[in-house]
């Protein structure tokens, strides 16, 4: 992978295609997936592009297989990705946990549709946000990003690969059907390979290598299959050697590290964007496509003389809790529009800790909010 074969220039493409191109630019050379609306275009684009750049695309027999093939490819040293939507996301959950436990860099894209179950296959939802955080069993931390446009999903897919390589954790791109299917201008810059992050490789000889021994920081260097390290990794609770250890002590050491490597680096991981926050009494907290409607609502509120501002969560997990805690001392209320019946609002409410009121503006899915709906909630909160 000496030369980056990503496209460069300006393109008018949809979010799914932009996501695939972002992956190619990020150095992704393996995709395993299963067709599902509204994420299929990511797979279709990858099936065209990966063979051109020396990568491998494969359509697996289901999403369980897709997620596992991605993990296997990553352990063979290749940057790997899959893309799915609601039902497929559910099927991938067990092995997201395996990815967390083995500390496997990879990217999982969820072009969210409305659920539960088969729900509205072709229409938008933001209803897997808590599943992204808690969907696999056990205690863990994960990284999830929420793009708002085709350009954003291109850029954030590169960020997702960088974060997954740096922290050795599956990174979720929690997009949605509207972003996936809308077409807009996407500018693809030349991405220099040296600007991309790659997992640290062991610098010790095989006989001294311990797969989960940390040196600097909490993320251990990663060997890959076929290079003579002869390492063992397991989904069981394990020690530095990668050997299973069935004790509460080993569990304590491992889980603390897996969680802390994300939690203690949240300053590096968490990104958000603030608009007109400085003097805001009412803060609209939004993510994904809903951000773009909230922008209108905030502008309309300002026109009415309400001091409203917008906090866009780019990183949804880990959650921007310090920032919301700070803002709760300044603001009267948070207004949280999301295309579900209350998920991220619960986190905002927790962090606001009673210092500022929190209002959910729900949408059950199948469409996006109207700006007026959010404006109405801002007005009520301002009273």
């Amino acid at each position, binding site marked *: 992978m000496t030369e980056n074969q990503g496209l460069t220039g300006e393109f008018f493409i949809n979010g799914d295609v932009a996501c695939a191109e972002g992956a190619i630019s990020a150095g992704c*050379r*393996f995709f*395993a997936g299963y067709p599902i609306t509204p994420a299929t275009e990511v797979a279709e684009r990858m099936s*065209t592009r990966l*063979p*051109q750049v*020396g990568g*491998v695309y*494969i359509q*697996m*027999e*289901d999403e*369980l*297989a*897709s997620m*596992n*093939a*991605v*993990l*296997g*490819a*990553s*352990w*063979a*040293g*290749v940057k*790997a990705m899959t893309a799915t939507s609601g039902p497929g996301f559910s099927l991938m959950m*067990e*092995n997201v*946990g*395996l990815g967390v436990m*083995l500390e496997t860099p990879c990217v999982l894209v969820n072009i969210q549709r409305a659920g539960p179950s088969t729900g509205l296959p072709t229409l938008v939802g933001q209803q897997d946000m808590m599943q992204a955080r808690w969907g696999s069993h056990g205690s863990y931390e994960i990284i999830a990003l929420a793009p708002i446009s085709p350009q954003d999903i291109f850029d954030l897919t590169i960020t997702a690969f960088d974060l997954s390589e740096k922290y050795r954790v599956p990174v979720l791109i929690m997009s949605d059907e509207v972003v996936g299917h809308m077409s807009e201008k996407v500018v693809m810059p030349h991405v220099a390979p040296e600007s991309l992050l790659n997992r640290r490789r062991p610098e010790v000889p095989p006989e001294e290598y311990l797969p989960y021994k940390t040196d600097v920081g909490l993320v251990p260097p990663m060997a890959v*299959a*076929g*290079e*003579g*390290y*002869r*390492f*063992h*990794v*397991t*989904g*069981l609770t394990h020690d530095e050697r990668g*050997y*299973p250890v069935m004790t509460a002590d080993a569990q304590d050491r491992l889980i603390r590290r897996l969680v802390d490597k994300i939690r203690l680096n949240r300053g590096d991981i968490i990104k958000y964007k603030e608009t007109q926050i400085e003097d805001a009494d009412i803060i609209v907290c939004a993510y994904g496509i809903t951000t773009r409607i909230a922008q209108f609502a905030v502008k309309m509120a300002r026109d009415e003389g309400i001091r409203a501002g917008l906090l866009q969560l780019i990183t949804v997990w880990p959650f921007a809790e310090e920032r919301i805690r700070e803002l709760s001392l300044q603001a009267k209320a948070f207004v949280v529009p999301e295309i579900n019946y209350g998920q991220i609002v619960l986190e905002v409410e927790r962090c606001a800790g009673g210092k500022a009121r929190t209002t959910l503006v729900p949408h059950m899915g199948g469409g996006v909010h109207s700006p007026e709906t959010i404006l109405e909630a801002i007005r009520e909160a301002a009273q």
Partner: protein
Amino acid sequence: MIDAMNVEEPSIEKYLRQDRLPHIWCSGCGIGPVAGCFLRAIDREKIDADRIAVVSGIGCTGRVAGYVKLDSFHTTHGRAIPFATGLILANPDLNVVVFSGDGDLVAIGGNHLIHAARRNIDMTVICVNNFNYGMTGGQVAPTAPLEARTTTTPYGNFESPFNLPYLVSASGASYVARWTVLQIRQLEKAIAEAMTKPGFSFIEVVAPCPVVYGRMNKEPKGLDSMHYYQDKSIIQDGADPKDAGLELNGPIVVGKFVDVQRPTLWDHLREVSNRAQEKANGRAKVQRSAK
């Protein structure tokens, strides 16, 4: 006269994580001998051990990955084959071996098994078949013969079992064999053949589980099972897998059933990749000349 005791045996210690011993398997279990055959095959055939990746799922046989001093992955229940698929597709130079049990590979992972065979993907699957879920205490498996007693079929199994060689050969495997743990020479040879053959290879190994399955089916000691294998094994290379179904206390047809050459997944993939790159390069040339 050849002194059988002095025939040189390959040394397998170097392929074992001796700091992990003793292993968890019960006395009389058949998994250890299969792992031994695997490691002897590597040594005797001088297969590059640095390029081997062993992938296991969950269950007693799934623990093999943890005892071998090779790159090894102990994954989730049923998912060893798709994990292995990712490994081999990302690095075709690996020699990928899936080592797992019948419940893992055929019940929860059954879909992946048939698809890997269909794709004729370059990997070797060693399936230790002890007819039950040993790790959880002896529940019925989709390989358990009709009428077999298990902890969840106390009145006898009322389901028909899979005939694994038939299933896998019909799905497209290049190499299919079955042996019992009694025939360790043939088993070792079969593993060596499978690991050096391109395409999808599948070896079913009928193995005793004296502590749970055997206790409930009149084979309470490992040796009882070995006597059964000795009495009832019919060695028949080239037998039609269709006729190789297993019945409770019935004959066990063993041998190499399928050994054919057909293009592997990587053969087809390389062709398609070349086509894609030629097309992409052709387009780039046209664009350059237009400028």
